[in-house]
């Protein structure tokens, strides 16, 4: 085996490992295992759904559907688990359908993956489908993969939307 081929083999293995993190993350959401999901985020992690989708550069000067640090994510999870979360009677459920995650950039600051998706959120007799591309920034902390940022670029985030209660 040549040196170059060995590097590619390592990269392919790494790429699969990273893609597995993205797939597992969506599976935790679909299963409603929010505490485990929250634990995937680095302490300085961020969950971001920009209002202008992929065109948006700025989380401060431009609005977002959600732009949350770990404290706000914990708030969202704690609320969902509260029996007095009226809007969860009946509960919402979700399904992520992912295309193969692709590593877009890699380096000492971590790895960036791009994953086109369909997202369905259902509750009672309503079902809503959204599409877009997720962008994960994954970093290695204490031997585990952590999410520094999960950015969700919806195809049409600025349109009038009904309540989106779970995590895309």
């Amino acid at each position, binding site marked *: 085996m040549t040196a170059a081929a060995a590097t590619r083999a390592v990269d392919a293995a790494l790429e699969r490992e990273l893609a597995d993190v993205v797939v597992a993350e969506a599976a935790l959401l679909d299963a409603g295992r929010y505490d485990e999901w929250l634990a995937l985020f680095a302490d300085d992690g961020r969950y971001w759904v920009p209002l202008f989708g992929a065109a948006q550069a700025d989380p401060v000067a431009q609005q977002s559907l959600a732009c949350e640090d770990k404290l706000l994510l914990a708030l969202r999870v704690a609320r969902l688990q509260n029996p007095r979360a009226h*809007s969860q009677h009946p509960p919402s459920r979700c399904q992520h359908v992912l295309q193969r995650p692709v590593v877009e950039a890699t380096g000492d600051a971590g790895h960036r993956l791009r994953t086109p998706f369909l997202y369905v959120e259902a509750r009672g007799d309503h079902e809503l489908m959204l599409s877009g591309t997720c962008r994960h920034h994954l970093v290695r902390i204490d031997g585990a993969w952590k999410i520094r940022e999960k950015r969700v670029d919806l195809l049409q985030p600025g349109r009038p939307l009904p309540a989106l209660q779970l995590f895309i």
Partner: protein
Amino acid sequence: MRPSELVEDDRVHRDVYLSEQVFALERERFFANTWSFLGHASQVPNAGDFVTEEIAGRPLVMVRQPDRSIRVLYNRCAHKGTQLVTDASGNVGNYFRCPYHAWTYKLDGAPMGVPLKAGYDGTRLAACESGRGMAPVRHLGVHRDFVFVKLGDGGLGFAEYFGEALRSIDNLVDRSPLGKLEVAGGVLRNVIRCNWKMYLENINDTVHPMSTHQSAIDAATALWKGRGADEPKPMAMEQILPFGSGYDFYDRMGGRVQPNGHSVLGTNFSIHSGYAQPPGYAEALRDAHGPQRAAEVLERSPQNAILFPSLAVKGSPQSIRVVRPLAADRTLVEAWSLRVVGGPELLFERTMAYNRLVFSPMSVVAHDDVHLFESIQRGLAADGNEWVSLHRGFDRAELEGGGARDVNGTNELLMRNQFRAWARFMEAGA
């Protein structure tokens, strides 16, 4: 039932929310007789700039004129009805040109040209509506860059209709040392399966937060437990924790009802009163407006002021909500952020954060509101009671006079006042 029979002194009939006939009549009469918020002058800074909007099912375009004035036109070609512009905003250049048959119009809607002009010789075109260009919305009111329209000739003139309620816009605009605001950052849009009046009513409802928002308040309280009272709170905590302030707090905040359905909630204080002032900001406002006006503005941060029937205004944060009825059981609610020109950037960050936290389709606070509005829209179909109670604090004396009136913050006069105006403007040519 006539609209006036649906509104009694202390209760309203469910048909005000449920009836398709009532909704059709609202489109025909109510929005012809009342002034709706359309947009803000900062959205169209240059000649030819436009934004499109729809009010009561009518497609409108607000466009900046060469003389700097603003006009609002019906967005349809005089020929066949094509919308002249279909983007949400943009610039048309020096004139409108229909993409279908190239009829052209000046920026004020006046007709410019049609192809094959000779074909109209000897026809009635010039004498018809189709020969007069794009129809203007004739009743246009602009107060400190806030643009309102009235679609019909009935009702009251702009100044008389809003009266004292325009001071709520002044409180917002005078937050700027330059007296100038800009719409910025993008608009959050929600579609809710409930009647628009239910949403507007809830803006004046101070008794729901403790029970409706209990899950969000509990979660925030638990996360913040054990921290010192003086510990600086993250902005989200500063904004969410006051929701759970209790019945007494909301009662004492006070309210004021004004003629024609308008109101101010939180005349004494509100959940927004505790936000820390950015360094140097109070001084800048004193320099710009004088100490008296600066104090008036900064010491008054109402929970919500309503410019009935389409606009809810906060002073701090600089957030407005625009309510657009889509159907008897469907309402568009938009949250706009305003930048205080010449003010600290922190104010804008606070406004954006508040809108995101409380008015986004992903808001943990709004989810329970939306669920309950949609639940009411269904629940009202029940037999056994066709009425919605608005009895709290009713006093026969409130029926006299008709002027503005101060009330305690939990008095449902804040809602009765909306419905009394609604019934009046539902009458033909009110």
